[in-house]
């Protein structure tokens, strides 16, 4: 017995050491790969962050997100406790274990296996203050981890207790890693308990050790001690060896992800190093499954973001591409992700990388002429404002106050355009209807389909036309256009507003007055206006003044997708309808007179499936205008 204290070595540490060395090597290789795939500017950011004060923020964030799992606590307490007890408990076991060595065996610090198998190599006594404190702490955190593991097991059977309707299905690699993780701590507990009559132990290990001692009297004393330590070591090895191919890679990569994010690195238009870290940071917790309407309404479980990241990781490009082409990019999964993986951007990048330009110049015609069939439109006026084109018969070009861009989808819902024109007229605003007789697409649908080159051509042409009007304010009716006008266009000196923002401005400035009707209505937040652009307040402020606005459980960030986004070009209409029907049913569970939205695409989607009255906010306001 004494040689083990003297040697501080036993063959059972070998499996652990194999795993340990393997994980270290993997970490180095992964880190080098990530940095290699980053653009130079991002690498500099990473280096600079190391020496900045923001590093403390990063440490705090890592502590809060990776160990305490604060975001998951906010979702569900049980789920939060499960995650943080395992992560934080394990971390504390490692930390306290190392401190313990500094106290009792400072000369063993350089042995990497020493803190892991400490109780086997070291005798302590619980009667000393130091010993009792460490015994207590170590047992306390072990109990914490064990309770977390117990909950993890229960979660596999009763996930509703944890606020989840669905959870991920595990493949063999995840199963192997998970079961070995589940084994590590009970085995450690048993090993320490069996050893506790020699090494001493805390309230947990010593108490159980005494119980086992009683059993032990019937058989060869201490026969189980070394097998238990062997089993513990092997469980650790299996876990480490399976780590790179399992969901648990996130334990390592999430730390890196938080570091990179705090260093100012953002997802870019290419799936580079940062995207790689994001993909490996997906813990397959499955929190994105319930929010995904493809999963909940259209039985498309295989299209969920959690499966998408997995397919990208396993380089199953076909399946990943399919999921990207189905995704409506409503952002509900991004909102739900506790790690902050922007899977929508990952999908967009994947699509963009897959576009094959058979006709690279197919939007060249927009350069030549806005609309070859028409010479009398607003477009023609604007685009031919060169001296030779401005024929004397043409009306004098004025500079309007506001330029109105309805967008293609609003052309398909003419009631919205009509309403907007009436509102402009009622407010006495000098406006020009830029795409009244047809315009050029804003470019967002192409962008969502991954065709960035085509999109850029349209953006350039539209920018030219909008700036040529000289207007200082641009109002658009379609949130899809609004998003790209705001984010991508460079319209210097032009304020871009969605009509919900603009109408509210008109109301608040007293330019239009409305009366309130007794109509009962609910408001549906369009994805592109709500989650993508953060406009939640304005439509509600308007609606409070014109009708009896009711609440649904699907407001703001929890809003549902109408199933008709410009993305998701791969999804069949049948599936889109299933999503639309389900969303409409949920929102009108308490009957209302009208469902109001602020997007022509949402309006069409809902109008095409049911008999409920679906209207745009502009139509509602137009109806309630008080004309002076």
């Amino acid at each position, binding site marked *: 017995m004494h040689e083990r204290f003297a040697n501080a070595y036993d063959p059972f540490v070998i499996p652990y050491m194999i795993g340990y060395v393997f994980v270290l090597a993997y970490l180095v290789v992964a880190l080098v790969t990530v940095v290699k795939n980053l653009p130079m500017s991002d690498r500099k950011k990473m280096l600079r962050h190391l020496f900045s004060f923001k590093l403390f923020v990063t440490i705090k964030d890592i502590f809060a997100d990776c160990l305490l799992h604060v975001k998951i606590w906010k979702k569900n307490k049980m789920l939060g406790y499960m995650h943080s007890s395992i992560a934080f408990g394990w971390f504390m076991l490692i930390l306290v274990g190392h401190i313990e060595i500094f106290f009792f065996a400072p000369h063993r610090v350089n042995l990497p296996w020493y803190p892991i198998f400490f109780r086997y190599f070291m005798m302590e006594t619980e009667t000393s203050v130091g010993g009792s404190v460490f015994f207590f702490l170590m047992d306390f955190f072990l109990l914490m981890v064990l309770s977390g593991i117990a909950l993890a097991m229960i979660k596999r059977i009763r996930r509703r207790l944890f606020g989840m309707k669905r959870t991920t299905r595990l493949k063999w690699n995840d199963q192997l890693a998970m079961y070995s993780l589940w084994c590590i701590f009970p085995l450690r507990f048993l090993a320490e308990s069996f050893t506790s009559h020699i090494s001493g132990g805390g309230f947990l290990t010593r108490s159980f050790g005494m119980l086992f001692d009683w059993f032990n009297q019937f058989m060869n004393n201490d026969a189980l001690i070394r097998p238990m330590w062997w089993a513990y070591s092997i469980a650790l090895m299996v876990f480490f060896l399976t780590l790179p191919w399992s969901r648990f890679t996130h334990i390592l990569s999430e730390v890196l992800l938080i570091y990179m994010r705090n260093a100012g690195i953002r997802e870019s238009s290419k799936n580079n190093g940062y995207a790689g870290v994001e993909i490996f940071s997906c813990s397959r917790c499955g929190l994105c499954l319930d929010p995904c309407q493809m999963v909940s309404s259209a039985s498309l479980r295989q299209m969920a973001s959690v499966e998408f990241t997995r397919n990208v990781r396993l380089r199953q490009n076909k399946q990943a591409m399919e999921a990207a082409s189905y995704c409506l990019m409503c952002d509900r999964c991004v909102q739900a992700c506790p790690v902050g993986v922007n899977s929508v951007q990952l999908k967009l990048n994947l699509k963009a990388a897959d576009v094959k330009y058979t006709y690279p110049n197919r939007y060249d015609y927009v350069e030549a002429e806005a609309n070859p069939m028409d010479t009398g439109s607003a477009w023609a006026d604007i685009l031919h404002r060169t001296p030779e084109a401005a024929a004397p018969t043409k009306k004098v070009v004025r500079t309007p106050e506001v330029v109105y861009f309805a967008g293609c989808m609003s052309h398909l819902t003419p*009631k919205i355009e009509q309403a907007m024109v009436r509102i402009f007229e009622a407010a006495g605003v000098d406006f020009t209807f830029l795409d009244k007789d047809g315009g050029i697409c804003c470019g967002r649908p192409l962008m969502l389909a991954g065709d960035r080159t085509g999109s850029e051509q349209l953006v350039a042409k539209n920018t030219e036309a909008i700036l040529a009007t000289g207007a200082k304010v641009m109002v658009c009716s379609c949130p899809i256009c609004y998003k790209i006008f705001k984010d991508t266009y460079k319209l210097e000196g032009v304020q871009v507003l969605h009509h919900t923002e603009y109408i509210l401005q008109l109301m608040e400035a007293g330019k239009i007055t409305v009366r309130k009707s007794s109509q009962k209505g609910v408001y549906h937040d369009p994805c592109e206006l709500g989650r993508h652009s953060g406009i939640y307040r304005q439509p509600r402020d308007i609606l409070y003044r014109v009708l009896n606005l009711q609440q649904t459980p699907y407001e703001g960030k929890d809003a549902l997708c109408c199933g008709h986004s410009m993305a998701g070009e791969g999804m069949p209409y049948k599936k889109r309808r299933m999503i639309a029907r389900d969303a409409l049913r949920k929102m009108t569970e308490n009957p209302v007179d009208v469902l109001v939205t602020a997007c022509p695409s949402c309006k069409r989607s809902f109008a095409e499936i049911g008999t409920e009255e679906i209207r745009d906010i502009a139509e509602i306001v137009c109806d309630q205008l008080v004309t002076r």
Partner: protein
Amino acid sequence: MEDVIVVIGGGPAGMEAALSLAGRGHKVYIVEKTNALGGHLARWDRLFPQQDPAQEILNDMLAGIKNADDKIEVICNAQVQSVKKRMRGLEVMLSNQKMILADAVLVCCGFDLFRAERKEEYGYGIYDNVLTSADLEERFKHKKVLCADGRVPEKVAFVHCVGSRDEKVDHTYCSKVCCVTAVKQACEIKELYPQAEVFNLYMDLRMFDRYFEQMYHKAQSHYGVHFVRGRLSEVSETADGRLQIKTEDTLLGRPMKITVDMLVLMVGMQACAQTEELSEKLDLKVSASDHFFETKDLFLKGNYAHTKGIFLAGACTGPKSLPDTLQDARSAAESIHRYLTA
């Protein structure tokens, strides 16, 4: 003892089947939800392919029913409340509390026209000069087809396949009669106003039946109707109340913009609003693909429902032209007769 048959629906199929069954000595009750017999036929002016007046055909059928009043009883303003299986036959309860013990039930509930408002981009219900094919037929009855401001239309465009072969509105099927109706109505416009220019915007012209192809040729050679292969993308109103329509001539590969005085939407057929309710009451199967009733097969049991004693005829089993509907009704009568005398 005479057999009793309840016919649900008093349109052409229901009337023709009733006449046929009465001729074989059966007692027939026609249950009609509106206040008169005739169905969609009563709304139509003239019928393809030979411009026969709809009213004459309807009158002939009504006269036949009147002559057989000992055998045919018409119950208007009534609907089927419930149908229960009894030892012999079926107990049919009507909404007016009348109970009929029937040996067989024939469902002829027909079709509904597609609600053109669902395609907002075509402007029906928004712009005054956008009509449906049914609205136009109503105006043909009065021999006057004028714009909202009372002008004679100079340019008229017909849009084919509105609510047919359109995945977006969950109608993936062809309604069969709209192509030829559009050709008929285009010719009628030219007869009424020879100066008018008429466009037909189609995606396919399905001139499948007898005399249809000839009508189509006559429309071009005699009446000078324009046929443009392309779907309508959007409609907007001009300052003077005309309609600017955007489409693409897919044969020339060219976008097109035409300003017209009147736009006619060729609305397709869809399963009638009562389909779901009836399918529950009578235990009928509804096709998941087109939402019309399913028959036992499409050949020898083409009028048999999956439930014993219940039969189907007319456009409730999918879009049909009037001649097809009438033949289907007669074939249903034959099927019921065989079933009752077996």
